[in-house]
């Protein structure tokens, strides 16, 4: 099975590898997959509260080349989008961009799940902050 050039490129030059501060109210963290399945993706976004634009994204992935490429691409794509725009990213877009073969489609599905999980986490944090009374921990 030969890999597409784009997958190889993302594998050799992954974009946005790293971590954001999980505890920050501006950061949403999505952790999807399971070690037993051979695929775990962590995707994090830092969102501007006023504009709802994703200003920063980072990922880490345990998985095959296609999984790494899918999550790397996901971080590229979400940056600069609002959270709602990011929710419109479909796994099929990833499959097309990376020319993933049928047996690797599930990697793109996981990447889409990772985006949604990160956004869901961020939104939950915003709701929690909104509903908290104004006593703060220093």
């Amino acid at each position: 099975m030969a890999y597409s050039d784009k997958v190889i490129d993302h594998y050799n030059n992954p974009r946005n590898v790293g971590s954001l501060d999980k505890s920050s109210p501006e950061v949403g963290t999505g952790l999807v997959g399971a070690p037993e399945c051979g695929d775990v993706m962590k995707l994090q976004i830092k969102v501007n509260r006023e504009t709802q634009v994703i200003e920063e994204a980072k990922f880490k992935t345990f998985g095959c080349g296609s999984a790494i490429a899918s999550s790397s691409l996901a971080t590229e794509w979400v940056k600069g989008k609002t959270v709602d725009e990011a929710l419109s990213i479909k796994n099929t877009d990833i499959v097309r961009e990376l020319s993933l073969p049928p047996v690797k489609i599930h990697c793109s599905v996981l990447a889409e799940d990772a985006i949604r999980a990160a956004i869901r986490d961020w939104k939950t944090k915003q709701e929690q902050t909104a509903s908290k009374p104004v006593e703060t921990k220093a």
Partner: protein
Amino acid sequence: MSTMTSDVVAGGGTAVAQKPSEVSSANVTLPIYMDNHATTPVDPRVLEEMLPYFTDRFGNSASRNHSFGWTAEQGVEQARERIARLVGATPKEIVFTSGATESDNLAIKGVAEMYREKGNHIITAVTEHKAVLDTCKRLEKYGYRVTYLPVQKDGLIDLDDLKRAVDEKTILVTIMAANNEIGVLQPVAEIGKLCHERGVLFHTDATQAVGKVPIDVQKMNIDVMSISAHKMYGPKGVGALYVRRKNPRVQLAAIIDGGGHERGMRSGTLNVPGIVGLGKACAIAQEEMPQEMKRLAGLRDRLKDRIMGRLDEVFINGSMEHRLPNNINISFAYVEGESLLMGINDIAVSSGSACTSATLEPSYVLKALGTGDELAHSSIRFGIGRFNTEAEVDYVADRVVETVNRLRELSPLYEMAKEGIDLASVKWAAE
């Protein structure tokens, strides 16, 4: 190595550019082949021996009436002798097939059919090659009962399990001599002794063992045995089946009909050049096995030490004590196997990861060891061979270490482990 850290990053995500490998390839020719359990290159001496049988000695060895046939037959008979000698058999006990898969089929189906009156119970092990397992599955459809013995953590069967499993209906025990994934050697002599005492036939798939470790069908009480040419520096498409003639005399029902070749056990014109190649491969193994075993064990240990000495959280799958001298199978925690293979794409090895299989199933052999799916996904099998050098071993080890380190930087599991999180206690989204 990567300059990025996994601490809090204030902003500005950058691509982590892959530096070209820092390992020098000055002393090696790329790509390097280190997957000798999948197949082996044909030894030049084997090829040389085969060639005349494609050109002027092209006769059909079954042509009894002219010199073309006699010459081909001579080549075949010499090969038969060479194979028999390597394994402690007599030439008449060697049947030629298209390979070990066919030999396994012939052995198991052939015994099952012939001994049906005596019983319908077959015993095998969960770590057998699919050629054995799938054949057994088919026989179950025809009403045979099959016991699949488990293996212990080191990959060996428990002889007590075998003892308990044998009953009055048992007609065949089939257990491989050496495992293709983890290289583990089963206690063949003890199994043979037990079977002999209980009057049960013993077949062993010795595909990975013949030519690598000493096999003697008399000493080991083997009744039927599968042999493959392309695992021992011979050509693909040819193998053999040892079928005992004395003490006891084993009878097999043929699975291929048509002409009655090979004493009625396997019809079809013989693959003369292939057989000649198999014979030569055996003759070479006979001569060179002791030194070669030592050399390959040395290389294998060098590879193992060079990798394991420089990485933490790496685990060997299967017993080191009862193992083929040229095999090592290692799991690299927190790194997935296919991504590792991609990173060392100038080296040919294989992985037990689900991502490398067409069915997305992780290795059932590693599963049987109780390894756990995550480590099965992180495993790499190295099969060192006759033509590998020390420089190649060093290069492979260095590239593996370099790539594992790089991929661990990308791995959320490694990050969590370093933070002290017990991964076993995490509630994963996909569970």
